[in-house]
């Protein structure tokens, strides 16, 4: 008597609790659409700014200064995405998103902004261009997905452009940090030495070197994760063409 009855009671309970699972409400979706539209527009402004400055000056050199403010504003604004995950309106991991956004914010403020001497380096242009193209595609991808009208072109771009843009961005970031090293060492930027009342020390120069080293295990993992995602998301199209 007991075994079958208990079995059915258990599944019935699971069914009802599944129905209670919640996703983002209509208000949240409206907010997210606005957020992603604003971010797409912001990075388009940066893209246009770069093109205009290049045409005006006739050289790639020193384009950072022409888009410095919108870059700082919109890249820092991405911190909101951590909040979106924490609150639950976006189904991503807080830790993963936090990590990705913080690394961008770190490069923008703690390296490029803080060490003036690297701002004229070409490596800065390398990662700014990579970020700009990536973000325009990414934010329009989210916008269209939320509106349930995702053009295949955007989906394809999101899962294909990264193949070139990701290594390009990483190269730009690493070269920029490397360029900052001598200035950080010379000025002791963000560093605390002994003796002091809190018996603590921090060497920003060593810290930056450790950050560069951390790219070695991290970059391949993230890159190959995206490659696997690409196969999963775009894979079925190849199957259809094979059938033909």
């Amino acid at each position, binding site marked *: 008597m007991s075994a079958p009855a208990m079995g059915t009671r*258990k599944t019935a309970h699971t069914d009802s609790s599944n129905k209670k699972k919640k996703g983002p409400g209509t208000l949240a979706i409206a907010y997210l659409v606005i957020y992603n539209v604003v971010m797409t527009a912001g990075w388009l402004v940066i893209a246009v700014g770069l093109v205009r400055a290049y045409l005006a000056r006739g050289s790639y050199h020193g384009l950072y200064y022409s888009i410095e403010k919108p870059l700082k504003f919109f890249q820092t604004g991405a911190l909101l995405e951590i909040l979106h995950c924490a609150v639950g309106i976006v189904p991503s991991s807080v830790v993963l998103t936090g990590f990705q956004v913080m690394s961008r914010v770190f490069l923008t403020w703690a390296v490029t902004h803080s060490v003036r001497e690297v701002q004229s380096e070409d490596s800065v242009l390398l990662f700014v261009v990579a970020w700009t193209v990536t973000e325009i595609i990414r934010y329009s991808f989210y916008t269209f997905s939320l509106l349930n009208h995702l053009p295949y072109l955007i989906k394809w771009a999101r899962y294909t452009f990264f193949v070139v843009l990701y290594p390009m961005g990483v190269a730009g970031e690493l070269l920029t940090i490397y360029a900052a090293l001598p200035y950080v060492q010379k000025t002791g930027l963000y560093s605390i030495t002994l003796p002091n009342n*809190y*018996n*603590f020390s921090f060497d920003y120069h060593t810290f930056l070197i450790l950050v560069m080293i951390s790219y070695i295990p991290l970059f391949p993992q993230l890159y190959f994760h995206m490659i696997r995602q690409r196969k999963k998301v775009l894979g079925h199209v190849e199957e259809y063409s094979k059938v033909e």
Partner: protein
Amino acid sequence: MGHVEILDAKTKDKLCFLDKVEPNATIGEIKSMFHKSHPQWYPARQSIRLDPKGKSLKDEDVLQHLPVGTTATFYFRDLGAQISWVTVFLTEYAGPLLIYLMFYFRVPFIYAPKYDFTTSKHWVVHLACMCHSFHYVKRLLETLFVHRFSHGTMPLRNIFKNCTYYWGFAAWMAYYINHPLYTPPIYGEQQIRLALIVFLFCQIGNFSIHIALRNLRPPGSKTRKIPYPTKNPFTWIFLLVSCPNYTYELGSWLGFTLMTQCLPVAAFTLVGFIQMTVWAKGKHRSYLKEFRDYPTLRSPILPFIL
């Protein structure tokens, strides 16, 4: 007499069929029988469930009291390589003890060569070494002679995670406290004396709680009871808190932070506090679930606050 079949929880493959199993056999005994046919899966790494995605059955559960027919179907999941709690505790506590001493005695390659094997001129540094060492010796002895563990083992990967945490923080703290450029506490002797009193009080308190918890449980048993204050005044905190061992542990490290006035020590105290709060809340919740008459005045770790 019943029969038992064990299926893989993921693939549903038939892994083992045990015929003629006594109705009063325990899950623990069934695990031993399963181990015979699959020697690589010792009982500690077996998770046996009624449902592939359900909770693990306990070793003490008896076959005839479970909702199964004449042939019981269980699902098996491999918990991975296991290591005993005692081994993990001994390793993770021996590390800080020895590592701190290496910094205290200023062995070569840590500080500039001219400081090798020298001693600090500040007496608080010697005091701190004694307190830190005492703390970890106490932990090692408690692991060997006081604690009664409900689970025998934990996953092997935990030892790497735990040792990195304890050993890493110990090295980080010890580096600064024993540094030739160490700065003693601002308020000098007053601060150090107060810190030492707090530290010792909490060490005795923590030990008292460990003894009280041990006495709740007869040797070899896994029973759970509500802890209550005993004649020992250090246990009267049970009136206000579910996990006073964590409360006293926090107090000890606050004392050590005050004594050394060292930021890495404060950081270690904070991280430990966060982890212990998570554990205390979990324990408090399971007390409330298991005992209907659980005292309502108690908070998980900080009286009335948390």
